[in-house]
C-alpha cells in the first residue's frame, strides 16, 4: 500500500457525522473560506477537491483533529489532498513564491527591511545565523531540493 492509499484508508472520512465541531473550532476558517466539515463531506462523496483553493488555508493547527468526536484525521487528510493537488499542478502561486524564496535564499520568508530594523533596535545581529547566511549550507539545501525534484513538482514542470 503506497503512502497515499494508506493515508486515504486512515482518513476515517466515512465516520464523519457532519457535526461541525471542526469548522466551529477552526482559527483559519474564521478568516478564510476554509470549511473543514464541507471538505470532509465532499471527500466522502467522492468529489475531487484537489482544485479547491481553500485546501491551502489550513494552518495544520490540529484543533479539529484533536476534538473530532469520531476520529476523522482531518489534517492528515488535508495534507494528503494537498499532495494530490500538487501532483495535478494545482499549487497556488502565492505559495510558489515562498518555495522559490526557500530555494534561492534558504528561507521561505526572507528578512524584510522592517524586521532587520527591529533586530537592530533590540540588539540582535543584523542577520540571523541560518542557512541564508551560510552559502555553503545553502548549496546543500539546494542539492536536496534538486535531487527530489521539488521545484519542478510544485511548479508543475515535472512530467
Amino acid at each position, binding site marked *: 500500500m503506497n503512502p497515499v492509499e494508506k493515508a486515504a484508508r486512515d482518513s476515517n472520512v466515512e465516520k464523519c457525522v*457532519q*457535526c*461541525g*465541531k471542526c469548522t*466551529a473550532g477552526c482559527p483559519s476558517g*474564521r478568516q478564510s473560506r476554509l470549511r473543514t466539515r*464541507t471538505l470532509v463531506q465532499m471527500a466522502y462523496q467522492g468529489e475531487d477537491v484537489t482544485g479547491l483553493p481553500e485546501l491551502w488555508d489550513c494552518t495544520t493547527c490540529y*484543533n479539529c483533529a484533536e476534538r473530532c*468526536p469520531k476520529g476523522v484525521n482531518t489534517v492528515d487528510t488535508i495534507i494528503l489532498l494537498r499532495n494530490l493537488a500538487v501532483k495535478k499542478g494545482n499549487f497556488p502561486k502565492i505559495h510558489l513564491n515562498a518555495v522559490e524564496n526557500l530555494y534561492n535564499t534558504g528561507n521561505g520568508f526572507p528578512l524584510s527591511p522592517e524586521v532587520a530594523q527591529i533586530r537592530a533596535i533590540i540588539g540582535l545581529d543584523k542577520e540571523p545565523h541560518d542557512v541564508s547566511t551560510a552559502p555553503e549550507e545553502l548549496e546543500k539545501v539546494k542539492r536536496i531540493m534538486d535531487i527530489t525534484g521539488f521545484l519542478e513538482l510544485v511548479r508543475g514542470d515535472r512530467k
Partner: protein
Amino acid sequence: MIGVFLCDCGTNIAGNTDMEYLKEELSKEDDLIVHESIFLCSQLGQDLIKETIEKEKLDRVVICSCSPKHHGDIFKECIGEKMNPYLWEMANIREQCSWATENKNEATQKALALIKGAIEASRTLQEIGQAKVPVIKDVMVIGGGIAGMHAAIEIADKGFHVYLVEQNPNIGGNMCKLDRTFPTDDCSMCTISPILNETAMHKNIDVLTMTDVEDVSGHPGEYTVTTRSRPRYVDFTACTGCGDCAQTDLVMETPTLSEPLWLDRIKIHEDLCNGCGACAKLCAKQNDPPALTQKEKGAISDYDTRKCVGCWVCVEKCPKKAVEIINVCPIVVPSEFNLGLGFRKAIYVPDSQAVPLKYLRDPETCLQLNGTMECQGCTTICKAKAPCQEAEEVRQLRVGAIVVATGYEQYDLSGTEYNLEHPNVITGLELERLISPSGPTLGELKRPSDGKIPQRVVFVQCAGSRDRRYAEYCSKICCMYATKNARLVKADHPEIDVTICYIDLRAAGRGYEEYYDQAREMGIKYIRGNVSEILADGDELLVRTENTLLNEPLLLEADLVVLSTALVPSRGTKHLIETIPLVPGKDGFIAPVHVKIAPVDTATTGIFIAGTAEAPKPIQECITDAGAVASRIATFLKDDQLTVDLVTSHINPDICIKCGECNEICNYDAIDTEGENYEVVDVACHACGMCTTVCPTNAIELRYYSDIQLEKAVDGILEKDKDSVIAYCCSQCGYNAADLAGTAKMRYSPEVKIVRVPCSGRVTIPQMLYPFTRGAKGVMIGACLEGQCHYIDGNIKEKDKVALAKQVLDLMGIGGEKLELFNISSAEGAKFVESAERMVSRC
C-alpha cells in the same frame, strides 16, 4: 453409536462450508451416523435428532451448528427428552468457523477438525444428575432510584419480601432532582412522591438507606449479601423530621457558596437588650472560653460564634428575651443533593421532601462529631432527643435473587473544551435544581456567578456523548431533556433567548416529535452544529459552533451554558460489576445476557438489572424494566426448590489424601472437610474447576469439562489438522468474544481452534503443554479481564501457571512465546481477533 447432526443454518454455515464433503469424511467412520438439516433448531430438525436417538439407539450426540451460547439450551432440552442431557457435545461451526473464515475450503477443513474434536470429547462424557436446591423467597433490590423502587414495589406486591438497599440518606435517586419530565411536563416530585411513600410504607419492603453492598456470595436461589450501613448519628425512630435542628436565617444571593460558612447561632436584638450583661456572665460560668463577653456595663455583649457551643443558656436566661436562636447548627456547606449548588447544614436532610424524612449528621463537618468542640446545639434543641452516637451496622442478608438498579451519573467533563470550571457553565442536572421549586433558588433561574437572570441561554448537546474521547454511545435522553428544559425556561421567561446546539435531534418516542415541534413554535432556536469550545469573558461566555446548515462558523454569546453531559455508569454500578461480578459492555454499563430477548437478565442466574445501570434510558423505560424484572423474579422464585445440574466437582475418596489444597483454592467454600471423607458441597460449587488444577492425586475432578474430555477434544482437532493453535477460551469471556467476532464477520486465521473451558483458571499446566505433544503449533488462553473473572481470580491464578509453562516450553526447545494468555472481555470481538492473529504470526 454417535449421531452427528450437521446444520446448514440456511446459508449461514452451508454458504461457506462444503457440507457434502463433511458428510463424506465423517461417514468413513464406522460408529458415526451423520445427518444434515437445513435448520437443526427448527421443529423438523429437533424431531430428526429425537427420532434418530430412538431409532439408532444413539449413546452420544454431536450437534454441529451455531454457538452453544446461542441454541445450546434448545438442543439440551430436545436431547434431554430422549437421553441424559449431558451426553452430547456441540461443535461451533458458525460463529467460530463459517462466519470467521474467509476461504470456504479453509472453513470446511476447520469445521471438520472442530467436529472431530467434539466427537472425541463426546465419547468421554458421563451421565450427570440433578440436585434440588432450596430457594429463599426474599429479594434484594440494590439502588433506590425510580427503577429500583418500582421493581421493589412490584416484587413486594407479588408477596415476596424485599430489601431495598440505597447508598444515599434518601430514596428516589436522580428523578427526585428533576424539575419536570418530558414529554408531559409533569412535576417530577409530584410523580415520584407517591412511589417514594409507597416504597417506604410497604409491609413487604425493608428500606436500608446509607447502605453499601460489600460482598455477594452464594449461588442462585441462595445468595448472601453483606451490607454496611453508615450511621446517621440521629436516631432514626426518634427523629420526627421537624427541622428545628437545621433552621437558619441564611439567604444566599447567588446559587453557590464560595466557601463553607460558620454562621452566628444567636442574634441579640438591640431594641430589647438593656445591657445587663447576664448573658455574658452565664456564658462565662458555663463555657471556657466564653462566646459572649461584655466590654463595659450597659453595652451589648460581643458574640464570637466560633466559641459558642450552643448551650443556649443566654437564650433561656435573658430577662428581656433579647437573644434569639437563628442557627442551631452554625455550619454551612454546599448541598450534595443540589449538586454543589445551594447549601445544607452539618445536620440535614438532603431535600425537604426527602423520604425517609429523617435527619442525619455529617461526621466530617459536624462540630461535635469531628471533635472541634463539645457542641450541644442540636442535641439540646431536639425535643425528641434524636441526635446520638451510632456505629456502622454490618448485616448479612440472605436472598434468593438480586436486582441491580444502581443507575447512572453524569460524565465529569472537567478539564475539557467545555469549560465546566466556569461557574456559568452547568450540567443539565444542575439546571434541573436551579429551576426546581424545591431547589436552592426556589425555582428562580439565577446563574451561579452573580445570581442574575440570564438573558441568553445556550444548551450544548452531545457534551461527551457520541465522542470517541469520552463516551462513544448516544446518551439517548439528552435531546428530549434539553428540549424540555429549554421549554421550561422559555415558558417562565419568554424574553430569554434560548438556543440548542445539536448534531442530530433524536426525538423517537410517544409524543416526542410533537413535543419538539411545540418547542420550535415557542421560539427556541435550534442550531445544527456541535460545539467546539466554550470561552469565558468574565461572567459572560462565548460558544464556538458552526451553523452547519448555512456553512457558517458562529460565536454565540451566552449568559448561561447548559451542557447535556453524557450519562455514564454510576460508581455504584461499577462497584457491583466488580463485586458480584457482572459482565460489563464496552460502554461500561452492565450487559444483559441478550440485548433483545433477555434484556433484564444478567449472565449470572438469579441476578437481574433494571433502569440506567444497563444503559441510558428515559424514566418510562426504567419503569418497563422494573416490571419485567419483577415478572422474571416471580418466575425464578415461584417454586420452593431450584433444580440444578450437577456439573460440579466431585472427590474420589479412594485416592484423596485430604491435603486440603482444593479447599484452599476454592473461592466458594464448597469443600466439606468436616466428615470422614472430603466432599464437594454441590449447591455451593460453581464448577469453575480450579480445584482440579491443584489436586496432587487427581482425586477431584469436574463431572463436565473433565481432564479427559478436554484432552480428547484436543486430540480430535489435531488428528484432522496439525496446523492448529489450540485456544482454551473461558465460557464467560474469551468464548463469547470469539462468538462476537464471528457474528460481526471479523475474519481470523482458521488455524485458531477453540476448546471451551468453564474458567481460564481450570486449565492446568499439563493441559497447556499437551497440544504441543500432539503436534499443535501453539496454545492460547482467552481469559476475562483482570478483576472481572466470573470465578473471582481464576485468570489471575492462570497467569502464574502460564508463566511457569512458558519456562517449560523454553526448556523443551519449543519456545515460551508459543503459549500466551490474553485478557479479553466478552464485548471485545476485535481484541479476540487481534490476539488470535498475534498468536498465529508467532507460531
